């Protein structure tokens, strides 16, 4: 039973393994870029200047909002965002313009700039992905941990609940739920979250079953640790790695579900610039305005691919058999 004595912690080892995978790294960089895009959305696309000199002083309207009595004509040194259109502002004089220098990705049927909507849609898509899966993970981890730790009738109840949840086609379950509640961004996040836990719960349950009979778990019980402490301080850190993989894939699928919902008209309200929403509105113009479907379609495709690459890379990196 000789083990290599290395000074590396587990996660540093995983990171080193992950970095070797070029596709995974590409996906990871892309995900980071998308997050940056989402956070910086108002600086990248908007009708409000980034900085300007007005009445003799420098102002940053994108940060502080426009001052009272603002008039573009009076201002000097106006620096606009690279995409100088707001995602919600419409211009009926400029509808369905194909991609050009002024409108990189063209405009939609109400003259809204597609590029601006796309950038602001990133925020919605990523937020929904993270929050929904975060909620699903929180529920799944707690339920899975309880089932795996206590076993017995707790496990029987949880396992049957997981099977029942699996039997429902999730997408239609969400559709049905949204028929009863107001489809806002928050409600969509919650609904995707509370329907997404069974996969994670099952993973954690399995990991806990493996860990339950390990000596270090018995050791922590002997020292006088309570059940919750044993579960979440001792077992969970040893069970979390496969869940991270599942979380990564979960974010991708939550984004896809949101796009699907918005496409069907059950998603976020139409004025919110979500990717699925743009797709949905462009359905009627598919034969005259190709950019309306291709652009958000590509955005969804690229994002899902990036998350899946990260997920696969992570899965390989935590697999001890992949190490040499």
């Amino acid at each position: 039973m000789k083990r290599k004595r290395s000074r590396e912690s587990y996660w540093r080892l995983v990171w080193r393994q992950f970095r070797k995978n070029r596709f995974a790294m590409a996906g990871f960089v892309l995900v980071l870029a998308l997050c940056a895009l989402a956070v910086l959305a108002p600086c990248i696309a908007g009708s409000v200047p980034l900085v300007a000199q007005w009445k003799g002083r420098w102002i940053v309207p994108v940060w502080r909002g426009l001052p009272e009595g603002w008039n573009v004509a009076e201002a000097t040194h106006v620096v606009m965002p690279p995409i100088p259109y707001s995602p919600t502002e419409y211009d009926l004089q400029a509808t369905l313009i194909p991609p050009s220098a002024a409108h990189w990705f063209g405009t939609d049927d109400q003259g809204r700039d597609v590029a601006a909507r796309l950038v602001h849609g990133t925020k919605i898509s990523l937020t929904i992905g993270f929050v929904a899966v975060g909620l699903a993970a929180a529920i799944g981890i707690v339920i899975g941990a309880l089932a795996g730790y206590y076993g017995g009738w707790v496990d029987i109840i949880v396992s049957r609940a997981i099977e029942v949840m699996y039997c429902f086609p999730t997408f239609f379950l969400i559709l049905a739920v949204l028929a009863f509640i107001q489809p806002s961004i928050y409600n969509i996040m919650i609904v995707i979250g509370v329907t997404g836990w069974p996969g994670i719960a099952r993973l954690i349950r399995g990991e806990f079953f493996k860990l339950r009979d390990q000596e270090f778990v018995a050791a922590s019980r002997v020292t006088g640790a309570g059940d919750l402490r044993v579960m979440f301080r001792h077992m969970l850190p040893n069970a979390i790695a496969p869940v991270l993989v599942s979380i990564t894939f979960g974010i991708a699928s939550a984004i896809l579900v949101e796009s699907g919902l918005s496409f069907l008209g059950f998603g976020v309200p139409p004025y919110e610039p979500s990717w699925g929403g743009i797709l949905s509105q462009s359905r009627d113009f598919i034969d005259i305005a190709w950019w309306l479907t291709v652009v958000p379609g590509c955005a969804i495709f690229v994002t899902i691919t990036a998350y899946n690459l990260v997920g696969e890379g992570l899965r390989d990196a935590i697999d001890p058999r992949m190490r040499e």
Partner: protein
Amino acid sequence: MADEALITMEDVHVHFPVHCGVLRRKTLGVVRAVDGLSLVIHRGETLGLVGESGCGKSTAGRALLQLIRPTSGRVFFRDTPLTELRGEGLRRMRRHFQMIFQDPYASLNPRMTVGAIIAEPIRLHHVARGSAVQSAVQSLMQRVGLNPRFIRRYPHEFSGGQRQRIGIARALAARPEFLVADEPTSALDVSIQAQILNLLVDLRHELHLTYLFISHDLAAVRHMSDRIAVMYLGNVVELAPAAEIYAHPQHPYTQALLSAIPIPDPRAEQQRHRTVLHGDLPSPLRPPSGCPFHTRCPVALAHCATIAPLFKEYAPKHSAACHRLERSPA
């Protein structure tokens, strides 16, 4: 040493039901891992518990610590019935009795630093608070022979022997009076085993500890123990002071065990009479009737198969369970 009872086990049974089938669970039977064990451990002594693999000695240790709840029977720490405590009450009692585990690789949480592992019992039982925790951990590490500078390292950065020292430091952290050492050296290299055993002996004298030393290594048990209990199929068959049991083993099973120890002198080794047991340990799922040892006993009598012998004191402080002793008291 006054014979003050620190741990008392009264008729402890640990039975594991064996199921089959998924939907309609049928109970095939019960494994009687520990079957009516009674044992008293005196304050300050080391009681060695020996027996072959699968005889239930580890289960007995775990049942004592309430790590496995006994199916029936009672366990006392001084006058406190541990078997009747649950939840918070039992957790608070745990500071008095700790355990050293067999496998130093599996018994340390791979995601916690050495410092966090040793500090946990200190914090849980409020032995020290705030910055005193850190210094308590460091002095414990020093005490068990670890460099306190390694406090932030993870278990995988240590060798087996060092890991076992971490396990010992953790067991001592809550300042217990009683330790169960469950084969603490059997996973270690031979050269390391003696170091760990000597450390345990030193700690015992220094901290006035009481040990239940579980092992199948008869030489180690002899080195460590004041009294030795020999276990067979879930129960003690012989119990005597260490020197006495090695000099005058009464139970045929003990005799067979002792004759399996090689003597490091070829001539003596050749001349001595060896009792060789045939067959395997019977399944604890279907223990033999009568004396559990009769299936392998070289000197079994006719009624050994039907009547279980009583565990009785045949010489001062020397007890055994065998019909042979009934006829010709030692």
